[in-house]
Protein backbone atom coordinates (compact mmCIF):
# COMPACT_ATOMS: atom_id res chain seq x y z
CA UNK A 1 0.00 0.00 0.00
CA UNK A 2 1.62 3.18 -1.13
CA UNK A 3 1.03 6.69 0.06
CA UNK A 4 -0.35 7.46 -3.36
CA UNK A 5 -3.09 4.93 -2.80
CA UNK A 6 -3.91 6.31 0.63
CA UNK A 7 -3.88 9.81 -0.76
CA UNK A 8 -6.28 8.94 -3.57
CA UNK A 9 -8.69 7.26 -1.15
CA UNK A 10 -8.61 10.27 1.14
CA UNK A 11 -9.20 12.62 -1.76
CA UNK A 12 -12.14 10.49 -2.82
CA UNK A 13 -13.51 10.65 0.72
CA UNK A 14 -13.41 14.40 0.77
CA UNK A 15 -14.86 14.64 -2.71
CA UNK A 16 -17.77 12.48 -1.62
CA UNK A 17 -18.32 14.58 1.47
CA UNK A 18 -18.14 17.83 -0.46
CA UNK A 19 -20.46 16.65 -3.21
CA UNK A 20 -22.97 15.25 -0.79
CA UNK A 21 -22.86 18.40 1.27
CA UNK A 22 -23.59 20.45 -1.81
CA UNK A 23 -26.51 18.29 -2.91
CA UNK A 24 -27.69 18.44 0.65
CA UNK A 25 -27.65 22.18 0.61
CA UNK A 26 -29.41 22.60 -2.70
CA UNK A 27 -32.19 20.01 -2.67
CA UNK A 28 -34.16 21.16 0.38
CA UNK A 29 -34.03 24.72 -0.90
CA UNK A 30 -35.80 23.69 -4.06
CA UNK A 31 -38.75 22.62 -1.96
CA UNK A 32 -41.79 24.84 -1.75
CA UNK A 33 -42.31 26.30 1.66
CA UNK A 34 -39.51 27.47 3.86
CA UNK A 35 -39.06 26.35 7.43
CA UNK A 36 -40.55 29.53 8.84
CA UNK A 37 -43.82 28.56 7.22
CA UNK A 38 -43.76 25.38 9.25
CA UNK A 39 -43.31 27.27 12.48
CA UNK A 40 -46.13 29.59 11.58
CA UNK A 41 -48.37 26.69 10.68
CA UNK A 42 -47.75 25.14 14.06
CA UNK A 43 -48.76 28.45 15.61
CA UNK A 44 -51.94 28.75 13.61
CA UNK A 45 -53.15 25.21 14.01
CA UNK A 46 -55.65 24.58 16.75
CA UNK A 47 -57.25 27.94 16.62
CA UNK A 48 -54.56 30.05 18.11
CA UNK A 49 -55.22 33.45 16.74
CA UNK A 50 -52.20 34.94 15.10
CA UNK A 51 -51.76 38.58 14.43
CA UNK A 52 -48.80 40.00 12.58
CA UNK A 53 -48.05 36.69 10.90
CA UNK A 54 -45.89 38.43 8.32
CA UNK A 55 -43.74 39.85 11.14
CA UNK A 56 -43.19 36.40 12.59
CA UNK A 57 -42.03 35.15 9.23
CA UNK A 58 -39.64 38.09 8.91
CA UNK A 59 -38.16 37.56 12.35
CA UNK A 60 -37.57 33.89 11.69
CA UNK A 61 -36.09 34.40 8.26
CA UNK A 62 -33.68 36.83 9.81
CA UNK A 63 -32.76 34.57 12.68
CA UNK A 64 -31.91 31.67 10.40
CA UNK A 65 -30.23 33.79 7.75
CA UNK A 66 -32.68 32.76 5.08
CA UNK A 67 -32.62 36.18 3.43
CA UNK A 68 -28.89 36.19 2.73
CA UNK A 69 -27.79 35.55 -0.85
CA UNK A 70 -27.64 31.83 -1.66
CA UNK A 71 -23.90 31.90 -2.10
CA UNK A 72 -23.44 33.36 1.38
CA UNK A 73 -25.72 30.73 2.85
CA UNK A 74 -23.80 28.05 0.98
CA UNK A 75 -20.42 29.28 2.14
CA UNK A 76 -21.64 29.50 5.71
CA UNK A 77 -23.12 26.04 5.44
CA UNK A 78 -19.89 24.48 4.15
CA UNK A 79 -17.77 26.20 6.75
CA UNK A 80 -20.06 25.20 9.57
CA UNK A 81 -20.40 21.66 8.33
CA UNK A 82 -16.64 21.26 8.43
CA UNK A 83 -16.72 22.30 12.08
CA UNK A 84 -19.56 19.83 12.62
CA UNK A 85 -21.67 22.79 13.64
CA UNK A 86 -24.91 21.98 11.90
CA UNK A 87 -26.88 24.85 13.37
CA UNK A 88 -29.99 24.84 15.48
CA UNK A 89 -32.91 22.74 14.55
CA UNK A 90 -35.86 24.91 13.60
CA UNK A 91 -38.65 22.68 14.77
CA UNK A 92 -36.75 21.59 17.87
CA UNK A 93 -35.27 25.03 18.53
CA UNK A 94 -33.14 25.76 20.52
CA UNK A 95 -31.81 22.22 20.53
CA UNK A 96 -28.82 21.97 18.22
CA UNK A 97 -28.93 19.66 15.24
CA UNK A 98 -25.80 17.94 16.41
CA UNK A 99 -27.28 17.11 19.78
CA UNK A 100 -30.50 15.85 18.18
CA UNK A 101 -28.44 13.60 15.95
CA UNK A 102 -26.15 12.44 18.72
CA UNK A 103 -29.22 11.46 20.66
CA UNK A 104 -30.52 9.30 17.86
CA UNK A 105 -27.29 8.08 16.30
CA UNK A 106 -26.31 5.49 18.91
CA UNK A 107 -29.60 3.66 18.52
CA UNK A 108 -29.18 3.38 14.80
CA UNK A 109 -25.53 2.42 15.01
CA UNK A 110 -26.24 -0.25 17.57
CA UNK A 111 -29.23 -1.64 15.69
CA UNK A 112 -27.62 -1.53 12.27
CA UNK A 113 -24.16 -2.71 13.17
CA UNK A 114 -25.36 -5.66 15.19
CA UNK A 115 -27.95 -6.77 12.66
CA UNK A 116 -25.76 -6.12 9.62
CA UNK A 117 -22.88 -8.04 11.12
CA UNK A 118 -25.18 -10.94 11.95
CA UNK A 119 -26.72 -10.88 8.48
CA UNK A 120 -23.32 -10.58 6.85
CA UNK A 121 -21.68 -13.36 8.84
CA UNK A 122 -24.55 -15.77 8.78
CA UNK A 123 -25.44 -15.02 5.16
CA UNK A 124 -21.86 -15.44 3.97
CA UNK A 125 -21.53 -18.74 5.75
CA UNK A 126 -24.78 -20.05 4.30
CA UNK A 127 -23.82 -18.78 0.86
CA UNK A 128 -20.45 -20.49 1.04
CA UNK A 129 -22.10 -23.71 2.12
CA UNK A 130 -24.60 -23.43 -0.73
CA UNK A 131 -21.83 -23.33 -3.29
CA UNK A 132 -19.71 -25.98 -1.60
CA UNK A 133 -20.36 -29.36 -3.15
CA UNK A 134 -19.58 -31.15 0.06
CA UNK A 135 -22.20 -29.52 2.27
CA UNK A 136 -25.25 -31.42 3.48
CA UNK A 137 -28.30 -31.64 1.29
CA UNK A 138 -30.44 -29.76 3.77
CA UNK A 139 -28.33 -26.68 3.16
CA UNK A 140 -28.98 -26.82 -0.55
CA UNK A 141 -32.68 -26.95 0.10
CA UNK A 142 -32.34 -23.53 1.73
CA UNK A 143 -31.46 -21.90 -1.59
CA UNK A 144 -34.94 -21.22 -2.97
CA UNK A 145 -36.12 -20.08 0.44
CA UNK A 146 -33.25 -17.61 0.69
CA UNK A 147 -33.93 -16.37 -2.82
CA UNK A 148 -37.50 -15.59 -1.92
CA UNK A 149 -36.34 -13.89 1.26
CA UNK A 150 -33.78 -11.74 -0.50
CA UNK A 151 -36.39 -10.60 -3.00
CA UNK A 152 -38.81 -9.31 -0.37
CA UNK A 153 -37.89 -5.82 0.72
CA UNK A 154 -37.02 -5.17 4.35
CA UNK A 155 -40.01 -2.95 4.84
CA UNK A 156 -42.55 -5.56 3.84
CA UNK A 157 -40.68 -8.04 6.01
CA UNK A 158 -40.83 -5.58 8.88
CA UNK A 159 -44.59 -5.28 8.49
CA UNK A 160 -45.03 -9.03 8.35
CA UNK A 161 -42.74 -9.56 11.32
CA UNK A 162 -44.53 -6.80 13.21
CA UNK A 163 -47.88 -8.38 12.56
CA UNK A 164 -46.91 -11.95 13.29
CA UNK A 165 -44.64 -11.53 16.29
CA UNK A 166 -45.99 -8.40 17.92
CA UNK A 167 -49.62 -7.82 17.07
CA UNK A 168 -50.88 -11.33 16.49
CA UNK A 169 -48.93 -13.31 19.05
CA UNK A 170 -47.98 -10.43 21.28
CA UNK A 171 -44.59 -12.00 21.97
CA UNK A 172 -42.63 -8.85 21.32
CA UNK A 173 -43.23 -5.16 21.93
CA UNK A 174 -44.87 -3.19 19.15
CA UNK A 175 -42.07 -0.73 18.92
CA UNK A 176 -39.86 1.68 20.75
CA UNK A 177 -36.43 0.91 22.08
CA UNK A 178 -37.12 0.48 25.80
CA UNK A 179 -39.94 0.24 28.31
CA UNK A 180 -38.50 2.82 30.68
CA UNK A 181 -35.68 5.01 29.54
CA UNK A 182 -32.53 3.28 30.79
CA UNK A 183 -30.85 5.30 33.49
CA UNK A 184 -28.32 2.74 34.54
CA UNK A 185 -27.14 -0.61 33.46
CA UNK A 186 -28.25 -3.80 34.89
CA UNK A 187 -29.23 -7.09 33.41
CA UNK A 188 -32.95 -6.28 33.23
CA UNK A 189 -32.22 -3.02 31.41
CA UNK A 190 -30.04 -4.75 28.84
CA UNK A 191 -32.62 -7.46 28.49
CA UNK A 192 -35.26 -4.83 27.90
CA UNK A 193 -33.12 -3.13 25.25
CA UNK A 194 -32.43 -6.41 23.48
CA UNK A 195 -36.10 -7.36 23.72
CA UNK A 196 -37.14 -4.14 21.99
CA UNK A 197 -34.37 -4.29 19.41
CA UNK A 198 -35.13 -7.86 18.48
CA UNK A 199 -37.88 -7.35 15.90
CA UNK A 200 -36.30 -4.46 13.99
CA UNK A 201 -33.03 -6.36 13.99
CA UNK A 202 -34.80 -9.51 12.86
CA UNK A 203 -36.30 -7.67 9.87
CA UNK A 204 -32.92 -6.34 8.84
CA UNK A 205 -31.22 -9.69 9.34
CA UNK A 206 -33.89 -11.60 7.42
CA UNK A 207 -33.86 -9.16 4.54
CA UNK A 208 -30.06 -9.10 4.44
CA UNK A 209 -29.48 -12.80 4.81
CA UNK A 210 -30.52 -13.74 1.30
CA UNK A 211 -28.51 -10.91 -0.24
CA UNK A 212 -25.30 -11.95 1.47
CA UNK A 213 -25.89 -15.64 0.93
CA UNK A 214 -26.47 -15.23 -2.80
CA UNK A 215 -23.54 -12.87 -3.19
CA UNK A 216 -21.28 -15.25 -1.34
CA UNK A 217 -22.53 -18.18 -3.37
CA UNK A 218 -21.63 -16.37 -6.58
CA UNK A 219 -18.18 -15.41 -5.33
CA UNK A 220 -17.61 -18.89 -3.99
CA UNK A 221 -18.49 -20.55 -7.28
CA UNK A 222 -15.96 -18.32 -8.99
CA UNK A 223 -13.31 -19.26 -6.46
CA UNK A 224 -14.13 -22.95 -6.68
CA UNK A 225 -13.19 -22.89 -10.33
CA UNK A 226 -9.68 -21.63 -9.53
CA UNK A 227 -6.68 -23.85 -9.95
CA UNK A 228 -5.29 -23.33 -6.49
CA UNK A 229 -8.27 -25.12 -5.03
CA UNK A 230 -7.67 -28.12 -7.21
CA UNK A 231 -4.06 -27.92 -6.11
CA UNK A 232 -5.04 -27.75 -2.47
CA UNK A 233 -7.24 -30.75 -2.93
CA UNK A 234 -4.47 -32.59 -4.73
CA UNK A 235 -2.19 -31.84 -1.83
CA UNK A 236 -4.62 -33.80 0.28
CA UNK A 237 -5.58 -30.97 2.61
CA UNK A 238 -8.55 -31.54 4.87
CA UNK A 239 -11.90 -30.50 3.45
CA UNK A 240 -12.71 -28.16 6.28
CA UNK A 241 -9.39 -26.45 5.92
CA UNK A 242 -9.84 -26.00 2.19
CA UNK A 243 -13.32 -24.63 2.77
CA UNK A 244 -12.39 -22.01 5.33
CA UNK A 245 -8.77 -21.20 4.57
CA UNK A 246 -8.79 -21.33 0.82
CA UNK A 247 -12.24 -21.05 -0.66
CA UNK A 248 -14.15 -18.93 1.82
CA UNK A 249 -11.33 -16.58 2.59
CA UNK A 250 -10.86 -15.69 -1.05
CA UNK A 251 -14.54 -15.49 -1.78
CA UNK A 252 -14.98 -13.06 1.13
CA UNK A 253 -13.11 -10.30 -0.69
CA UNK A 254 -15.90 -9.12 -2.96
CA UNK A 255 -18.28 -9.51 -0.02
CA UNK A 256 -16.24 -7.05 2.01
CA UNK A 257 -16.47 -4.43 -0.74
CA UNK A 258 -20.18 -5.01 -0.95
CA UNK A 259 -20.38 -4.45 2.79
CA UNK A 260 -19.41 -0.81 2.39
CA UNK A 261 -22.20 -0.20 -0.10
CA UNK A 262 -24.61 -2.27 1.95
CA UNK A 263 -23.99 -0.08 4.95
CA UNK A 264 -25.13 2.89 2.90
CA UNK A 265 -28.25 1.09 1.75
CA UNK A 266 -28.91 -0.21 5.22
CA UNK A 267 -28.68 3.26 6.68
CA UNK A 268 -31.46 4.46 4.43
CA UNK A 269 -33.30 1.18 4.70
CA UNK A 270 -33.37 1.69 8.41
CA UNK A 271 -35.52 4.78 7.91
CA UNK A 272 -38.48 2.63 7.03
CA UNK A 273 -37.72 -0.07 9.56
CA UNK A 274 -37.31 2.52 12.28
CA UNK A 275 -40.55 4.19 11.24
CA UNK A 276 -42.35 0.85 11.25
CA UNK A 277 -41.06 0.02 14.72
CA UNK A 278 -40.99 3.51 16.18
CA UNK A 279 -37.33 2.99 16.89
CA UNK A 280 -35.83 6.30 18.05
CA UNK A 281 -32.87 6.28 15.65
CA UNK A 282 -31.60 8.42 12.82
CA UNK A 283 -34.16 7.15 10.34
CA UNK A 284 -37.01 8.10 12.59
CA UNK A 285 -35.42 11.48 13.23
CA UNK A 286 -35.09 12.07 9.50
CA UNK A 287 -38.70 11.06 8.92
CA UNK A 288 -39.87 13.55 11.53
CA UNK A 289 -37.57 16.24 10.21
CA UNK A 290 -39.03 15.76 6.75
CA UNK A 291 -42.52 16.06 8.05
CA UNK A 292 -41.77 19.37 9.69
CA UNK A 293 -39.54 20.55 6.81
CA UNK A 294 -36.70 21.18 9.20
CA UNK A 295 -33.94 22.08 6.71
CA UNK A 296 -31.15 22.09 9.17
CA UNK A 297 -32.06 18.79 10.69
CA UNK A 298 -32.60 17.11 7.32
CA UNK A 299 -29.25 18.41 6.16
CA UNK A 300 -27.63 17.37 9.37
CA UNK A 301 -28.97 13.84 9.26
CA UNK A 302 -28.08 13.40 5.61
CA UNK A 303 -24.63 14.86 6.31
CA UNK A 304 -24.08 12.40 9.12
CA UNK A 305 -25.29 9.48 7.05
CA UNK A 306 -22.99 10.42 4.21
CA UNK A 307 -20.00 10.96 6.45
CA UNK A 308 -20.59 7.69 8.24
CA UNK A 309 -20.94 5.70 5.07
CA UNK A 310 -18.09 7.47 3.28
CA UNK A 311 -15.95 6.83 6.32
CA UNK A 312 -16.91 3.17 6.33
CA UNK A 313 -15.97 2.95 2.67
CA UNK A 314 -12.68 4.70 3.34
CA UNK A 315 -11.80 2.35 6.17
CA UNK A 316 -12.70 -0.69 4.10
CA UNK A 317 -10.67 0.63 1.17
CA UNK A 318 -7.69 1.09 3.43
CA UNK A 319 -8.16 -2.33 5.01
CA UNK A 320 -8.69 -4.06 1.71
CA UNK A 321 -5.00 -4.26 0.72
CA UNK A 322 -4.34 -6.00 4.01
CA UNK A 323 -6.92 -8.62 3.10
CA UNK A 324 -5.94 -8.94 -0.52
CA UNK A 325 -2.18 -8.84 -0.97
CA UNK A 326 -2.57 -8.36 -4.71
CA UNK A 327 -3.68 -4.80 -4.19
CA UNK A 328 -0.52 -3.94 -2.33
CA UNK A 329 1.49 -3.72 -5.48
CA UNK A 330 -0.46 -0.73 -6.66
Amino acid at each position, binding site marked *: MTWGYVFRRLAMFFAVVLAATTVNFIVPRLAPGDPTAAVLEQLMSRGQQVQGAQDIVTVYRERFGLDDPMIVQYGRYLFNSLRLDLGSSISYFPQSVTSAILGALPWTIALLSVSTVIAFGLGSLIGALLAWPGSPRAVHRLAPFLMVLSAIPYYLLALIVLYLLAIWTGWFPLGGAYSVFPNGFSFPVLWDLAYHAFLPALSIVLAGLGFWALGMRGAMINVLGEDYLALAEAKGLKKGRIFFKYAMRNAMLPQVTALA*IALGTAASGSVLVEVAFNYPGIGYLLYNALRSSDYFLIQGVAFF*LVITVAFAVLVLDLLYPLLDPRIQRL
Partner: protein
Amino acid sequence: MYSLLRNTRAALLYLGASPKMIAGLVILALLLLIGLVGPLFIDVRLAEPISVRTNQPPSADHWLGTDSGGRELLAVIIAGTPQTLRMGVLAGVIGTTIGVMLGLFSGYFGGWWDRIISGVTDTMLTIPPLAILLVVAASVRAVNVEMMALIIASLSWMHATRVIRAQVLTLRELGYVQMARLSGLGNFSIIFREIFPNVIPIAFASLVGATSGAILSGMGLEVLGLGPQNTPTLGMTIYWALLYAAFSRGMWWWWCPPIIILALLFIALFLIASALDDFANPRLRSQS
Protein backbone atom coordinates in the same frame (compact mmCIF):
# COMPACT_ATOMS: atom_id res chain seq x y z
CA MET B 1 -31.30 -5.77 -36.64
CA TYR B 2 -31.50 -9.16 -38.25
CA SER B 3 -28.18 -10.19 -36.81
CA LEU B 4 -29.29 -8.95 -33.41
CA LEU B 5 -32.27 -11.23 -33.54
CA ARG B 6 -30.24 -14.14 -34.66
CA ASN B 7 -27.58 -13.55 -32.05
CA THR B 8 -30.14 -13.22 -29.34
CA ARG B 9 -31.43 -16.63 -30.28
CA ALA B 10 -28.62 -18.30 -28.39
CA ALA B 11 -29.44 -16.24 -25.33
CA LEU B 12 -33.12 -17.00 -25.64
CA LEU B 13 -32.43 -20.69 -26.07
CA TYR B 14 -30.34 -20.70 -22.94
CA LEU B 15 -32.72 -18.57 -20.96
CA GLY B 16 -35.72 -20.48 -22.23
CA ALA B 17 -34.32 -23.56 -20.61
CA SER B 18 -33.55 -21.82 -17.32
CA PRO B 19 -36.09 -22.80 -14.67
CA LYS B 20 -35.52 -19.48 -12.88
CA MET B 21 -36.34 -17.55 -16.00
CA ILE B 22 -39.44 -19.60 -16.68
CA ALA B 23 -40.68 -19.27 -13.10
CA GLY B 24 -39.98 -15.53 -13.09
CA LEU B 25 -41.71 -14.94 -16.41
CA VAL B 26 -44.70 -17.05 -15.45
CA ILE B 27 -45.23 -15.07 -12.24
CA LEU B 28 -44.74 -11.79 -14.07
CA ALA B 29 -47.15 -12.85 -16.79
CA LEU B 30 -49.76 -13.81 -14.21
CA LEU B 31 -49.41 -10.41 -12.55
CA LEU B 32 -49.71 -8.68 -15.92
CA LEU B 33 -52.72 -10.80 -16.68
CA ILE B 34 -54.41 -9.52 -13.54
CA GLY B 35 -54.16 -6.02 -14.96
CA LEU B 36 -55.09 -6.98 -18.51
CA VAL B 37 -57.86 -9.48 -18.03
CA GLY B 38 -59.15 -8.32 -14.68
CA PRO B 39 -60.95 -5.22 -16.00
CA LEU B 40 -63.01 -7.46 -18.28
CA PHE B 41 -64.61 -9.13 -15.31
CA ILE B 42 -64.45 -6.54 -12.56
CA ASP B 43 -65.51 -2.92 -12.69
CA VAL B 44 -62.25 -1.14 -11.82
CA ARG B 45 -64.17 1.97 -10.89
CA LEU B 46 -64.88 0.16 -7.66
CA ALA B 47 -61.26 0.92 -6.81
CA GLU B 48 -62.34 4.49 -6.17
CA PRO B 49 -63.38 5.48 -2.68
CA ILE B 50 -67.01 5.38 -1.50
CA SER B 51 -67.97 2.86 -4.13
CA VAL B 52 -68.97 -0.03 -1.91
CA ARG B 53 -69.92 -0.73 1.70
CA THR B 54 -66.93 -0.31 3.96
CA ASN B 55 -65.01 -2.89 5.98
CA GLN B 56 -66.55 -6.01 4.45
CA PRO B 57 -64.54 -9.22 4.76
CA PRO B 58 -64.16 -11.34 1.62
CA SER B 59 -67.46 -12.72 0.41
CA ALA B 60 -69.11 -13.96 -2.76
CA ASP B 61 -69.92 -10.37 -3.72
CA HIS B 62 -66.51 -8.96 -2.94
CA TRP B 63 -63.89 -11.65 -3.31
CA LEU B 64 -61.21 -9.72 -1.50
CA GLY B 65 -63.50 -7.70 0.70
CA THR B 66 -63.64 -3.92 0.96
CA ASP B 67 -61.59 -1.33 2.83
CA SER B 68 -62.54 1.48 5.16
CA GLY B 69 -62.53 4.02 2.35
CA GLY B 70 -65.27 2.14 0.49
CA ARG B 71 -62.99 0.64 -2.15
CA GLU B 72 -63.40 -2.88 -3.44
CA LEU B 73 -60.05 -4.51 -2.85
CA LEU B 74 -60.14 -6.87 -5.82
CA ALA B 75 -60.71 -3.85 -8.04
CA VAL B 76 -57.89 -2.04 -6.23
CA ILE B 77 -55.52 -4.92 -6.92
CA ILE B 78 -56.58 -5.10 -10.55
CA ALA B 79 -56.22 -1.37 -11.05
CA GLY B 80 -53.15 -1.00 -8.85
CA THR B 81 -50.90 -3.82 -10.01
CA PRO B 82 -50.39 -2.40 -13.52
CA GLN B 83 -49.84 1.08 -12.06
CA THR B 84 -47.11 -0.19 -9.79
CA LEU B 85 -45.54 -2.15 -12.64
CA ARG B 86 -45.76 0.82 -14.97
CA MET B 87 -44.03 3.06 -12.48
CA GLY B 88 -41.29 0.49 -11.94
CA VAL B 89 -40.68 -0.23 -15.62
CA LEU B 90 -40.75 3.45 -16.52
CA ALA B 91 -38.26 4.35 -13.82
CA GLY B 92 -36.17 1.29 -14.67
CA VAL B 93 -36.01 2.12 -18.37
CA ILE B 94 -35.16 5.78 -17.79
CA GLY B 95 -32.61 5.01 -15.11
CA THR B 96 -30.96 2.21 -17.04
CA THR B 97 -30.83 4.25 -20.23
CA ILE B 98 -29.05 7.07 -18.43
CA GLY B 99 -26.82 4.58 -16.65
CA VAL B 100 -25.87 2.68 -19.80
CA MET B 101 -25.06 5.89 -21.67
CA LEU B 102 -22.88 7.22 -18.89
CA GLY B 103 -21.21 3.83 -18.47
CA LEU B 104 -20.44 3.60 -22.17
CA PHE B 105 -19.01 7.09 -22.38
CA SER B 106 -17.10 6.86 -19.15
CA GLY B 107 -15.58 3.48 -19.98
CA TYR B 108 -14.83 4.26 -23.58
CA PHE B 109 -13.41 7.74 -23.41
CA GLY B 110 -11.60 7.33 -20.12
CA GLY B 111 -9.61 10.34 -18.95
CA TRP B 112 -11.50 13.28 -17.52
CA TRP B 113 -14.85 11.98 -18.70
CA ASP B 114 -14.26 8.83 -16.78
CA ARG B 115 -12.92 10.54 -13.71
CA ILE B 116 -15.92 12.84 -13.49
CA ILE B 117 -18.56 10.26 -14.28
CA SER B 118 -17.19 7.54 -12.06
CA GLY B 119 -16.50 10.07 -9.34
CA VAL B 120 -20.12 11.18 -9.44
CA THR B 121 -21.29 7.56 -9.64
CA ASP B 122 -19.24 6.49 -6.65
CA THR B 123 -20.38 9.52 -4.72
CA MET B 124 -24.01 8.84 -5.48
CA LEU B 125 -23.59 5.19 -4.57
CA THR B 126 -22.25 6.17 -1.17
CA ILE B 127 -25.14 8.48 -0.42
CA PRO B 128 -28.00 6.55 1.13
CA PRO B 129 -30.58 6.69 -1.67
CA LEU B 130 -33.72 6.83 0.39
CA ALA B 131 -32.44 9.85 2.30
CA ILE B 132 -32.14 11.77 -0.96
CA LEU B 133 -35.34 10.30 -2.38
CA LEU B 134 -37.27 11.42 0.65
CA VAL B 135 -35.87 14.92 0.39
CA VAL B 136 -36.54 15.12 -3.34
CA ALA B 137 -39.98 13.53 -3.20
CA ALA B 138 -41.00 15.76 -0.34
CA SER B 139 -39.88 18.77 -2.37
CA VAL B 140 -41.36 17.82 -5.70
CA ARG B 141 -44.54 16.30 -4.27
CA ALA B 142 -44.99 13.63 -6.86
CA VAL B 143 -48.63 13.66 -7.69
CA ASN B 144 -48.69 11.12 -10.46
CA VAL B 145 -47.02 7.88 -11.43
CA GLU B 146 -44.88 9.42 -14.17
CA MET B 147 -43.41 12.13 -11.95
CA MET B 148 -42.61 9.56 -9.38
CA ALA B 149 -40.91 7.31 -11.95
CA LEU B 150 -38.82 10.26 -13.09
CA ILE B 151 -37.69 11.10 -9.58
CA ILE B 152 -36.77 7.54 -8.79
CA ALA B 153 -35.01 7.10 -12.12
CA SER B 154 -32.83 10.12 -11.40
CA LEU B 155 -31.36 8.17 -8.51
CA SER B 156 -31.23 4.68 -9.96
CA TRP B 157 -28.73 4.92 -12.80
CA MET B 158 -25.55 4.37 -10.81
CA HIS B 159 -25.57 0.61 -10.74
CA ALA B 160 -25.93 0.35 -14.51
CA THR B 161 -23.18 2.93 -15.01
CA ARG B 162 -20.84 0.98 -12.84
CA VAL B 163 -21.30 -2.45 -14.36
CA ILE B 164 -21.39 -1.15 -17.92
CA ARG B 165 -18.28 0.93 -17.37
CA ALA B 166 -16.40 -2.06 -16.01
CA GLN B 167 -17.46 -4.11 -18.99
CA VAL B 168 -16.53 -1.39 -21.47
CA LEU B 169 -13.10 -1.04 -19.92
CA THR B 170 -12.48 -4.66 -20.89
CA LEU B 171 -14.18 -4.44 -24.27
CA ARG B 172 -12.32 -1.29 -25.17
CA GLU B 173 -9.03 -3.17 -25.26
CA LEU B 174 -10.38 -5.99 -27.39
CA GLY B 175 -9.16 -6.47 -30.94
CA TYR B 176 -12.41 -5.65 -32.62
CA VAL B 177 -12.66 -2.27 -31.00
CA GLN B 178 -9.10 -1.48 -32.13
CA MET B 179 -10.04 -2.81 -35.51
CA ALA B 180 -13.12 -0.64 -35.69
CA ARG B 181 -10.95 2.36 -35.08
CA LEU B 182 -8.67 1.34 -37.96
CA SER B 183 -11.82 0.84 -40.01
CA GLY B 184 -12.45 4.55 -39.77
CA LEU B 185 -15.39 4.37 -37.42
CA GLY B 186 -15.95 7.42 -35.25
CA ASN B 187 -16.15 7.17 -31.48
CA PHE B 188 -19.92 7.17 -31.44
CA SER B 189 -20.17 4.47 -34.08
CA ILE B 190 -17.71 2.37 -32.13
CA ILE B 191 -19.65 2.86 -28.90
CA PHE B 192 -23.04 2.12 -30.33
CA ARG B 193 -22.30 -0.33 -33.11
CA GLU B 194 -19.36 -2.28 -31.81
CA ILE B 195 -19.51 -2.06 -28.02
CA PHE B 196 -23.14 -1.57 -27.18
CA PRO B 197 -24.46 -4.84 -28.67
CA ASN B 198 -22.05 -6.73 -26.47
CA VAL B 199 -23.27 -5.15 -23.25
CA ILE B 200 -26.95 -5.75 -24.00
CA PRO B 201 -27.22 -8.80 -21.71
CA ILE B 202 -25.71 -6.85 -18.83
CA ALA B 203 -27.82 -3.81 -19.58
CA PHE B 204 -30.87 -6.03 -19.57
CA ALA B 205 -29.96 -7.55 -16.22
CA SER B 206 -29.45 -4.00 -14.93
CA LEU B 207 -32.83 -3.00 -16.28
CA VAL B 208 -34.56 -5.77 -14.40
CA GLY B 209 -32.62 -4.89 -11.25
CA ALA B 210 -33.40 -1.20 -11.65
CA THR B 211 -37.09 -1.91 -12.17
CA SER B 212 -37.18 -3.97 -9.03
CA GLY B 213 -35.29 -1.26 -7.15
CA ALA B 214 -37.63 1.40 -8.47
CA ILE B 215 -40.69 -0.49 -7.28
CA LEU B 216 -38.99 -0.87 -3.92
CA SER B 217 -38.18 2.83 -3.65
CA GLY B 218 -41.61 3.76 -4.91
CA MET B 219 -43.23 1.58 -2.32
CA GLY B 220 -41.07 3.15 0.36
CA LEU B 221 -42.19 6.63 -0.65
CA GLU B 222 -45.80 5.56 -0.94
CA VAL B 223 -46.05 4.03 2.50
CA LEU B 224 -44.56 7.21 3.90
CA GLY B 225 -47.37 9.11 2.21
CA LEU B 226 -45.22 10.66 -0.52
CA GLY B 227 -46.77 8.66 -3.34
CA PRO B 228 -49.42 9.42 -5.97
CA GLN B 229 -52.35 9.77 -3.62
CA ASN B 230 -55.07 9.81 -6.22
CA THR B 231 -53.91 6.64 -7.97
CA PRO B 232 -54.56 3.19 -6.56
CA THR B 233 -51.11 1.61 -6.43
CA LEU B 234 -50.08 -1.30 -4.25
CA GLY B 235 -47.93 0.92 -2.04
CA MET B 236 -50.74 3.41 -1.54
CA THR B 237 -53.02 0.54 -0.54
CA ILE B 238 -50.58 -0.34 2.22
CA TYR B 239 -50.44 3.33 3.18
CA TRP B 240 -54.20 3.51 3.57
CA ALA B 241 -54.26 0.22 5.44
CA LEU B 242 -51.73 1.64 7.88
CA LEU B 243 -53.63 4.90 8.19
CA TYR B 244 -56.81 3.03 9.08
CA ALA B 245 -54.89 0.69 11.39
CA ALA B 246 -55.98 -2.35 9.42
CA PHE B 247 -53.31 -4.42 11.12
CA SER B 248 -54.70 -4.26 14.59
CA ARG B 249 -58.28 -4.33 13.39
CA GLY B 250 -57.67 -7.76 11.96
CA MET B 251 -58.55 -6.62 8.43
CA TRP B 252 -56.04 -9.00 6.92
CA TRP B 253 -57.83 -8.94 3.56
CA TRP B 254 -56.81 -5.32 3.22
CA TRP B 255 -53.06 -5.48 3.62
CA CYS B 256 -52.36 -9.11 2.73
CA PRO B 257 -53.10 -9.01 -1.03
CA PRO B 258 -50.88 -5.99 -1.84
CA ILE B 259 -48.06 -7.41 0.25
CA ILE B 260 -48.38 -10.79 -1.46
CA ILE B 261 -48.55 -9.25 -4.92
CA LEU B 262 -45.58 -7.00 -4.20
CA ALA B 263 -43.62 -9.94 -2.82
CA LEU B 264 -44.48 -12.01 -5.90
CA LEU B 265 -43.43 -9.12 -8.11
CA PHE B 266 -40.10 -8.80 -6.35
CA ILE B 267 -39.56 -12.55 -6.51
CA ALA B 268 -40.38 -12.66 -10.22
CA LEU B 269 -38.03 -9.81 -11.05
CA PHE B 270 -35.37 -11.33 -8.86
CA LEU B 271 -35.62 -14.69 -10.61
CA ILE B 272 -35.38 -13.06 -14.03
CA ALA B 273 -32.40 -10.92 -13.02
CA SER B 274 -30.74 -13.91 -11.50
CA ALA B 275 -31.25 -15.99 -14.65
CA LEU B 276 -29.75 -13.16 -16.71
CA ASP B 277 -26.82 -13.00 -14.32
CA ASP B 278 -26.27 -16.70 -14.74
CA PHE B 279 -26.22 -16.19 -18.46
CA ALA B 280 -23.68 -13.40 -18.21
CA ASN B 281 -21.53 -15.34 -15.77
CA PRO B 282 -21.03 -18.86 -17.14
CA ARG B 283 -19.48 -20.22 -13.98
CA LEU B 284 -22.69 -19.63 -12.10
CA ARG B 285 -24.50 -21.29 -14.94
CA SER B 286 -22.70 -24.58 -14.56
CA GLN B 287 -23.63 -24.75 -10.91
CA SER B 288 -27.28 -24.08 -10.92
